[in-house]
């Protein structure tokens, strides 16, 4: 875990150097386009997290093993953190380029709705005490939420077909920088995930201990 964090830190320093000093300014956006190198990988990480949460939820319903539930809960929370980073950086970027904090752009709005769904997921988890019941109910919510993501995306795209910069025609060294910056973010997400899963494990242990205490 320490090694992962160290690699992530080194890569981030290297990427900051490339971003700030090697890559040239964008024609219309000047310096601010560099926000993208965090904004975009943040979104990828968040959606990857939500996707894995859906897989883990299905696995929980099939196998009834609480470890899958712990994984789903942990990775959803990590996804929400990266989703929040994506939303905030997107807003700051929108303020520079479009002049407004929130332009109801397709991807950003989809992320917001998704973020709210998964925040509801975590709130539901807090509201249920009994572990297996909590696992079952939240697994169902996670599956519903992920099934909704593509529908939300298309509905909002039809509602406002507008401005988000097309991702396809970036120069190759920018793509390179994007992916290079995704690696440390993924590593960090992995570290967060491991810490969270360990906490979930302690939580299960605590539940066992509480039962023993009550049994006396």
């Amino acid at each position, binding site marked *: 875990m320490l090694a992962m964090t160290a690699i992530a830190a080194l890569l981030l320093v290297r990427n900051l150097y490339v971003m700030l000093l090697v890559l040239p300014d964008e024609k219309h956006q000047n310096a601010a386009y560099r926000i993208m190198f965090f904004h975009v990988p943040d979104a990828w990480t968040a959606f990857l997290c939500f996707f894995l949460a859906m897989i883990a939820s299905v696995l929980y319903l099939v196998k009834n093993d609480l470890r899958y539930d712990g994984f789903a809960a942990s990775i959803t929370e990590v996804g929400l953190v990266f989703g929040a980073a994506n939303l905030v950086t997107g807003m700051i970027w929108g303020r520079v380029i479009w002049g407004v904090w929130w332009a109801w752009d397709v991807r950003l709005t989809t992320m917001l*709705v998704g973020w709210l*769904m998964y925040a*509801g997921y975590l709130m539901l988890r807090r*509201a*249920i005490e009994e572990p297996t019941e909590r696992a079952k109910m939240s697994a*169902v919510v996670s599956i*519903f939420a992920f*099934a909704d993501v593509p*529908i939300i995306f298309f509905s909002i795209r039809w*509602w406002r077909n507008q401005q988000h910069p097309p991702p396809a025609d970036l120069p190759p060294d920018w793509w390179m920088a994007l992916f290079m910056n995704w690696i440390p973010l993924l590593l960090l997400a992995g570290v967060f995930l491991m810490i969270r899963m360990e906490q979930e494990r302690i939580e299960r242990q605590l539940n066992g201990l509480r039962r023993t205490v009550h049994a006396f």
Partner: protein
Amino acid sequence: MAVPALRGSMSFLRQSLTIASKDLRSELRTKEALNASVAFALVILLLFSFAFEPTEVETRQISGGLLWLVFAFAGALILNRSFARELSNDCLDALVAAPISGAALFLGKALANLALLVTVELACLPVFGIFYNVPWTQQFWPLMLVMLLGTWGLTVVGTMFSALTVNLRLRELMLPMLVYPIMVPGLLAAVQLTAPLVMGQPLAGDLIPWLRLLIAFDVIFTALALTLVETVLVR
């Protein structure tokens, strides 16, 4: 081969209809949820007219959003009651233990909720027309189709989450928190369809993709709910 399958689906439908008629009968006896929901919807319709100038032409353009917000709020009241009603006297345990599948129970409850919600909507529409001076009946049947499809989406998701949150202390709070974000595409499509229909545009051209989206939303979530409801109900 086909005959037992047909018989199976017939009995599935009959079981659902039994549950639906049971729910409707017990609701009509007290009219608790129905009265509260209609009254609530009317209050919101009234409050909205303070938010903007209710006679302007532009208000007709946002009529779709206005109506569907009213329906979504009023719907939450009905959906909250749907499973919570069965908590007293352990009726829910009896229903789950009954020799019908969870899917049939769910479908029955959803059909009853659909009927109740459509009743509320039919009570709201004329009041909306009067308050906001909108001749909303020009495209009556297409509008009814959109109402039915949008309301089915709302009921199928709402009934599912009503079953899911029935044992929670914060039930009344959790249900809208979970249902509204998931409803975003369905509500968006319904809003986009309703406003032009209220203004008298025919259901064609630009509106067809939205209709398709609404139908897709309904089909996907009906299938998902029918598959997963068993895990939610059996505790």
